[in-house]
Structure formats: C-alpha cells, structure tokens
C-alpha cells in the first residue's frame, strides 16, 4: 500500500479568489489602509497628496518600520525582541564614535572608507547583540520577553556608559546619504526598507529557514520531535533581529545627524504595535511581511494626515492605540462587523 496511489484523495484547494481575500486579515488590513489613505486625501487633498508630503512620509517611517520587521521575525517564533531600540542606539553610537573619533574631518574616499568601517562595526554590534539574545533564549531557556528586556537595558546601558548620555555628532557628509539621500528620486530610507521587507518576505517564504521559523513558532515541542534544529533556528532569528535593529540604528543616526542612547524610545512599543496590527500572531506561527508593510503604511498615513489637519502630534499615539484595538476586535469578532448574519459554523 505504500506504492504510489492512482486515485488522489487530496483535492487541490479551489475556493474563489474573492472568498479567500475576504477571509484573510491582510486583505482586511489592505482595505483599512486604502480607506485611511482615501480619507486623508479627501480631507486635505492639496496638502496630504502633495509630493512634498508623500516624500516626507517616505523619509519618516522606514526607521521604525525596520524595527517592526525585526519584531515580526522574533514574534513568528512566539518570542519578542524588546532590545531592538537598545541595539539600534548602541550600534549607532559605535558607528558614530568611529566617525567622530577616528575619521575626524576626512573627506572624499577616505571618509567613505571610514564610513564603510563604521557601518560594518554597527552591523557587527547588531550581530553580537542578537547572538547574545539568541543564546539567552535558545540555550539558557529564558522567556524571550524577559531575556530581551534585560539585554535591552544592558545594551542601552552600554550606550550610556560610552557616551555619558550625551549625543555624539559631527559626521562626514557621506553619513547623511542613507537617511536623507535619494536614489533615482526615491528617498534612500524607503529604498532600504523596501529591500529589507522584500528580503524578509523572501526568506520567510522561500527558504528552509523561513519555513522552520514558522513551524517552530506554531509548536516548538513538535518542532523538536520533528528533528528541526530548534536552537540554531532561534539563534539565527535573534541575530537577524539584531542586525535589522542595527540597520535601523544607522538610519536614525543619519537622519538625526547624531547618535544618542535614548533616541527612538517610543519606537519599541510602536514596533510591537505595528507587528501585531500587521496580523503577526504574538504567540507565534503566523505572520506575513505584507501585513506588516500595510500596517506601517496605515499608521504613517494616519499620523501624517492628522498632522496636516493641525491635530496635535500626540494624537498619533491615541490613533495608533485605537487602530490596534479596533483591528484586534475585528480579527477576534468578525461577526460584529458583518451586516448579513451568517449562521454560526457548526
């Protein structure tokens, strides 16, 4: 009976495209994002839809959006990385120190060389910090939330120790490109975010590592029993998160033209918020990059639009929270938002 069977008991799934779209939370989120964009465009067309506003949005969101990608990666395994902001700032400070202390006032090719070195150093910091987190979670068995809470304090703490808490500034011009430059007219931060999001989506869907991350998040015990290399996979996840965080750190440094231990402190909760809003299951096993990208856009459209409408800067936070809770309620109780009541599924 283990020979190939002729009859095929596995019929391929063929529900209509529309039905599948309506059932997916990414599709619901896409609708919300488009509605937000349309609403803001309608309320303040000449300003919200202006090229200037759209480019300024494109410069603003990538730094925290990249942190949200890092959060997505760890949340997929049922973990979380609360140390991303700490890693970002520590990486930026290391890079900034190299640029100010060693590169001095160099120009041109020299400056570029020093900048390359500083970027490499920042990425190495992200890698080592991520490795540290990975060892805590995968080898020592700490709950991710506590491991990264503690390590986040340690990383931020080192950033304070290195700088005494003050900002490091005075970089060569080349450092400004990544945060403020344009490629073919497109803001570099946006290009960077696009590349990273695409890369993460690719890794998650097209590599063995990506599939293992999702299965591990769905049931770590079953993953172990299925001979998935759980420890190595988890370590790679936290290293990936650390490196993404250090890239965000370089971006923040470039945009602020300085590095400081307490930059982006509001980004931590924001990154968690975006990941959850994007449909990533905080208990692991489910999440798609496209959802996270949509969530980032929805957030950015909302806050920029409200800015245009002269609403205070702080209303962003309020709106973010409301949006998060709203989406969670929609996902938990879709029946509340259907006009035609369907009989409950048996």
């Amino acid at each position, binding site marked *: 009976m283990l020979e190939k069977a002729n009859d095929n008991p596995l019929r391929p799934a063929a529900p209509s495209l529309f039905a599948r779209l309506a059932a997916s939370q990414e599709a619901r989120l896409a609708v919300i994002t488009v509605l937000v964009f349309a609403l803001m465009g309608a309320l303040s067309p000449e300003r919200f839809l202006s090229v200037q506003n759209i480019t300024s949005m494109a410069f603003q969101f990538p730094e925290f959006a990249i942190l949200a990608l890092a959060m997505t990666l760890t949340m997929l395994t049922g973990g979380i990385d609360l140390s991303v902001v700490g890693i970002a700032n520590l990486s930026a400070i290391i890079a900034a120190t190299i640029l100010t202390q060693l590169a001095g006032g160099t120009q041109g090719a020299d400056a570029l060389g020093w900048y390359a070195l500083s970027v490499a150093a920042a990425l190495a910091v992200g890698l080592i910090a991520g490795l540290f987190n990975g060892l805590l979670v995968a080898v020592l*068995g700490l709950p991710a939330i*506590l491991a990264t809470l503690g390590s986040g*304090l*340690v990383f931020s703490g080192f950033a304070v120790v290195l700088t005494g808490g003050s900002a490091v500034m005075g970089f060569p011009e080349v450092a400004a490109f990544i945060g403020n430059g344009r490629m073919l007219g497109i803001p570099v931060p946006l290009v960077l975010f696009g590349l990273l999001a695409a890369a993460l989506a690719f890794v998650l869907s097209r590599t063995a590592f990506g599939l293992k991350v999702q299965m591990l998040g769905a049931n770590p015990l079953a993953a172990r029993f299925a001979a998935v290399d759980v420890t190595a996979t988890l370590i790679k996840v936290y290293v990936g998160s650390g490196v993404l965080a250090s890239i965000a750190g370089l971006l923040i440094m470039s945009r602020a033209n300085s590095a400081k231990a307490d930059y982006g402190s509001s980004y931590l*909760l924001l990154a968690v918020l975006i990941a959850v809003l994007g449909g990533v299951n905080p208990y692991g096993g489910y999440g798609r990059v496209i959802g996270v990208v949509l969530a980032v856009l929805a957030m950015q459209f909302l806050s920029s639009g409200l800015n245009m409408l002269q609403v205070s800067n702080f*209303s962003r936070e309020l709106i973010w*929270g409301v949006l*998060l809770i709203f989406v*969670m309620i929609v996902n938990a109780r879709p029946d509340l938002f259907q006009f035609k009541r369907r009989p409950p599924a048996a």
Partner: protein
Amino acid sequence: MQLSSLRIDWTRNETLVPLVIIAFCALAAFSDPSFLSIPTLTDLLRGSIVLGIFAVAAMLVLISGGIDVSFTAVAAFTMYSTAMLLNTLAPDLPWYAAIGIGMAMGAALGSINGILIVGFGLPTLIVTLGTLSIFRGFMLTFIGQKQITTLPPGMREFGRMMMIRGTNPDGSFYSLPWAFAATVGVIVVTWFILHKTMLGRSIFAIGGSLESARRIGINVRATQFFIYVYVGALAGLAGIIHSSMARVANPFDLVGLELSVIAAVVLGGARLTGGHGTLTGTLLGVALIVLVRNSLVVIGVPATWQMVVIGLLILIGTGLPAWQAKRAAARAA
C-alpha cells in the same frame, strides 16, 4: 508519600534577591560606613513608594496569568487630569478627595482594559499596549501637554505631610512622607485580598489553570474584570502620590517605567506563565532596583552603569531559575 524535605533552594528568587541585597549593602557599608544610616533607609523607602504600588499592581496581573503594561499611562493620565480638574473646578477639596478622585479615575480606565480583555477575549499584552497609547495619547491631545507646576492645595498638602523628619549630622534633612503609609496600606489590602478572600484564591486559581477554574465554577470573567479595575485604581493612587511628592504634574512622567516595574516583579519570583508570585518577593525586587538606582555610586560603580547593572540583574535573576529548570528537565526522563 515522600515529598522532598524543606531545604534552601538557591535558585529561588526569594532567596537570591535578599542575598544580593545583603551583599550590596555589605559592600556599600564597607566602602562608606555612613551608608548604614537612617537617611539611606528613608531614601530607599521614599524611592519605593510609587514603584512599590506599581509593582503590587503588576504582580497581581502576572499571578492571574496576564500582563499589564498600561498602568503607567493610567497613573500619568490620572495625576494630570485630577490636578487639572481640581485646579479648575474645586481647588479647595482636601487631599483625601484628590486621592479618591484619582483612584476612581484609575479604576474607570482599568475597567476599559477589563472590558476589552474579558468582554472581547483579547490577549492582555496587546490590549494594554493599545490602551497605553490611547490613554497617553488622549491625555496629551485633549487634556494638555504643559506641566502643572501649581498643584491643587490638597495635593500640595499631601506631598508635604511627613511621617519622619530629621537632620543629618552634616546639617541636611531627611524625611519620609505619609505617602509611604499608602504604599503600606496597598500592600496590606492586597495581601488580604490574595490570601484571605476567595476572590484572591480565585486569582491564583485562574493563573494556575484557566480551564480548571472555569470547570469548577469560578466566575472567571468577574474575577479578571476586578483585577484590571483594581490595578487601575492602584495606578491612579500611584499617580496622585507621584505628583504630590514631585510637587508637579508632568504628563511626560511615569510612562516608560512599565517594563522596569515588571522586571522588578519577575526578579521577585513571579512567573510570566501565571499562578506564582509573592508580595515579599515583589517588594524585595523593588528594593533591589531602588537600591541600585540610589546607591550604585556608593559601591564604586559610576552612575552611568546603572542601566547595565539593572539589566544584568534581570538576566541573572530570570536566567538562573530558567537554566535550573532546563537542567532539571534534562535530568528527568
């Protein structure tokens, strides 16, 4: 049947944390004999007032198997709104009215968490993350962003009420405000609820096994709702005390502390998985954090290292039991 006899378990946080505290104090006393003094103690106690109330609240939620990160926002919202409300409407109300209003407002905000968690069955971390943004965003958008430097007289008076007052040999003053009694009160009331009422035992039961609690007929929804309302009221109280002691209501204060508070509670032995947590452990956790904050310099570590030290303490305090549990699991077949 034979249960393992009682012996000191060196990986229990309730044992480890006091040891670290004693070692810290011994080291501090060695490098600066004046460390062991009343002013150090009153500084420690004063530093624990607000943090202690927060920690008790956070512990309660952890015991029930949830997590709350919104309590700092509730506190900030409450202290700022109460100060503004009293200043504009009823500046002559006494201090206890301010506290009453603050706790009621906190309870109301807590009930929003309760409705979302109990009514819609949403995960506690996500809900409180959302309400953290909502409460803070609402306050800063619609209530105000400027510090209130002139507090209502009731709150000012409360901030000036001192239990203990004294003069150091060098002529400086030390003191302990009556607000400390509020923290003691919170501890006593919470202890009573947790250990002397069926409600409290139900909180432990729910944290131990939600499904079993449902099956034996514990009113899980009412119990959870109570927790978030009570935590809200405690946060409100902490907010009023914070601004009274600081003599200013700064809307940007407090938020950002939430993770450190949870860290202190976990350091004290509460588990994120629910069902476990003691007031003693929690208070020891708070004491350790406050000690590191206040007195790191005394043992010769520059103040800039404070964050690193607290981070390492959290990693050690949670890492040792986790590592021990992992090894025990490997030994058992």
